[in-house]
């Protein structure tokens, strides 16, 4: 049943996002072509505009990854379509898991499209060398691909964290009998602020345990590479912790039942 639900969820979310993906890639290719074909001012301007359009589409992809995931959740679990969703012979946790897995897949796809567009638009040996040099200068030593991968994983987890937090806020907000949408938004902001405060507290605790991390908080100097690693692993652990917390909060609350309008 999970597979079947997932299929329908993905279909719905990707129906619009696939247009953004296609346009982002097409504009990236167009921009690159224009910049490669001719070095004249006209082509430089046109190429720049086309790459700008591609960037706009990528921003659209990111925004839609959040919005379509949340909209699908609200429509399917609390609005008219919920009359079908909740009468399917499926557990509530399966409905929830399908929505979450679809959001994870869409986030990964969005990430791949972003990387692909950046690659199409800007890849060259010269640009790669410049990036490597910039990283070396910024971090004060030989920066490895590991940092880029860790940063990528952190960004991915941040998106998942925000989506899961959104689901939990929607579920808790819809527990009440009135102003459900407004309450979901308020809960969402409240929960987000609370977790940010918690992360800061955790960071200070980590700072007490490791003076290098504390220097990062108080000093304006560029951190050493090992501190960057500490922080990246630390944020990775924090995101995982919050994702797990909000996942279970949302799932358990949903399992207790719904009150659809």
């Amino acid at each position, binding site marked *: 049943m999970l597979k079947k639900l997932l299929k329908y969820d993905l279909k719905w979310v990707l129906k619009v996002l696939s247009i953004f993906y296609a346009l982002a890639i097409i504009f990236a290719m167009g921009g690159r072509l224009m910049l490669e074909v001719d070095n004249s001012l006209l082509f430089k301007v046109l190429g720049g505009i086309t790459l700008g359009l591609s960037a706009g589409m990528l921003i659209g992809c990111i925004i839609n990854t959040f919005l379509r995931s949340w909209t699908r959740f609200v429509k399917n679990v609390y609005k008219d379509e919920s009359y079908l969703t909740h*009468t399917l*012979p499926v557990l509530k946790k399966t409905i929830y898991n399908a929505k979450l897995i679809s959001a994870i897949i869409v986030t990964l796809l969005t990430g791949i499209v972003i990387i692909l567009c950046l690659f199409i638009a800007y890849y060259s040996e010269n640009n790669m060398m410049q990036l490597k040099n910039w990283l070396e200068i910024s971090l004060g030593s030989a920066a490895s691909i590991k940092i880029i991968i860790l940063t990528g994983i952190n960004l991915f987890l941040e998106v998942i964290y925000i989506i899961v937090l959104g689901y939990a806020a929607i579920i808790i907000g819809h527990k009440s009998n009135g102003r459900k949408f407004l309450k979901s938004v308020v809960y969402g902001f409240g929960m987000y602020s609370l977790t940010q405060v918690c992360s800061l507290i955790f960071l200070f605790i980590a700072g007490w345990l490791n003076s290098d991390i504390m220097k990062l908080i108080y000093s304006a100097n560029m951190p050493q590479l090992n501190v960057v690693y500490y922080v990246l692993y630390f944020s990775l652990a924090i995101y995982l912790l919050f994702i797990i917390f909000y996942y279970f909060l949302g799932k358990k609350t949903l399992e207790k039942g719904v*009150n659809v309008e």
Partner: protein
Amino acid sequence: MELLETRNLGKMYDKFVALKDVNIKIQPNKIVGLLGKNGSGKTTLIKLVNDLLTPSSGEVLVKGEKIGINSKKIISYLPERAYLDKSWKVKDVLKFFWEFYEDFDQDKALKLLNDLQLDEDIQIGKMSKGMQEKLQLILVMSRRADLYILDEPLGGVDPATRDYILDTILSNFKEGSSVIISTHLIADIERVLDEVIFIDKGEIILCEDADKLRKKENASIDEVFRRKFKC
């Protein structure tokens, strides 16, 4: 064992009591009319049975089990609103029902759609409200369920459509199954009812065999309803 049983079922919205201590038992092979004025609690009761609302008190049992996957497999529910994804085509929704409900009879659904001359490729959002309601009814009645729950299937439709709806219900429900029809348009369904449940202000005020009630009151169900609910 009862097909459906509610025990001291209640639903409150903050301080408003929508349903209070509802105790009903539905046996197999019965057509039951859930009758009450608008806002009497009919839809709340139906939504509780279909897991769309969480009870404030009491419980719902279907074949002795609490509401869950097993109950949803044997209940076919028609809500009082349009609930299908408007972007779907008719063929998409047929596929969806076929994928999720083991008891969905696609051939029967296709035959009923054909009788209505409804194109499978038409988008639900482009259909009239009446046609959407008929499509939903076809989907619900194409399941070989043990219990059909139809919430206001006759509400807001013309007499000819009412006849179509009643005919579709009566000629398509599975033999031996039960049907609960919620309505306030009693005259239209009176002749088909085996049992009646009167609900008012969230409380069950009468639950009786239709024939016995007619005999006892020496009046039609419609008349009994009018007397009981006189403003």
